């Protein structure tokens, strides 16, 4: 089981305004808002915590097939580039990589090194990006595998016999896939 999430920092800058009134309060706990306020780069911290929450949500919904929007309750604690996220009685382990272009987080049930393969897109179309990401993943895995979706849009790879949990993410000009 694996969940990943990528944030394109220039897209985050363009498409979101984390400083708008009530934005932080809606998404982040008191402890997380403290991380943001005391960070030397609050913008990067906002999107790091966000990617941790999203990656954890993807992992959680693989275990508990469902769909909902409750980022605030996925509560992050961080140490260096690692961290944990708790949601109710669920807990997972995160590793995050931050570059000047993007932030990627990966969530697992046990601590693990980040394994996501990053893809930089040359197209801005959402549909084309999905297709590129999918073909890169299938090229890597072998053509006998197909990308399938479970209920609630949860993706997995299958060759008809073996199934593999995967996680796909894209934002702005960047995407990534991870195989559990």
């Amino acid at each position, binding site marked *: 089981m694996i969940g990943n999430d990528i944030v394109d920092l220039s897209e985050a800058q363009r498409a979101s305004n984390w400083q708008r009134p009530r934005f932080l309060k809606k998404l982040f706990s008191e402890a997380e808002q403290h991380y943001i306020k005391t960070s030397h780069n609050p913008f990067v911290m906002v999107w790091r915590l966000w990617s941790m929450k999203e990656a954890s949500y993807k992992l959680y919904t693989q275990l508990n097939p469902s769909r909902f929007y*409750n980022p605030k*309750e996925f509560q992050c604690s961080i140490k260096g580039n690692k961290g944990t996220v708790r949601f109710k009685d669920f807990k997972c382990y995160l590793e995050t990589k931050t570059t000047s272009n993007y932030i990627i987080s990966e969530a697992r049930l046990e601590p693990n090194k980040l394994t996501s393969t990053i893809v930089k897109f040359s197209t801005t179309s959402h549909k084309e990006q999905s297709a590129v990401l999918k073909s890169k993943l299938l090229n890597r895995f072998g053509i006998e595998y197909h990308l399938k979706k479970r209920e609630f849009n949860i993706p997995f790879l299958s060759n008809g016999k073996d199934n593999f949990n995967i996680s796909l993410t894209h934002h702005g000009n960047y995407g990534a896939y991870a195989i559990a």
Partner: protein
Amino acid sequence: MNNDELITKLKTIIAPYIQDEEAFKNLSEDTDFVKDLKINSANLVDIILDIEDEFDIRLENDDMEKMLDVKSAMAIVTSKLNK
């Protein structure tokens, strides 16, 4: 406010965030923000904040949890306005 007026207001709010024009043109109560309109989940909170500002209401975490499609957004706004 009737349903048509509400949908029209919601459409104006949602428009800046959509990434699928075709789905947006065909928007109905069943349209899903993420699956159909390809709205980035990071922008769902902007839609929630815009809805709060437009209708002068406040949405709690429980309300936000269901905000995944036009139908739920309409139900939440209607219930808040009737309070």
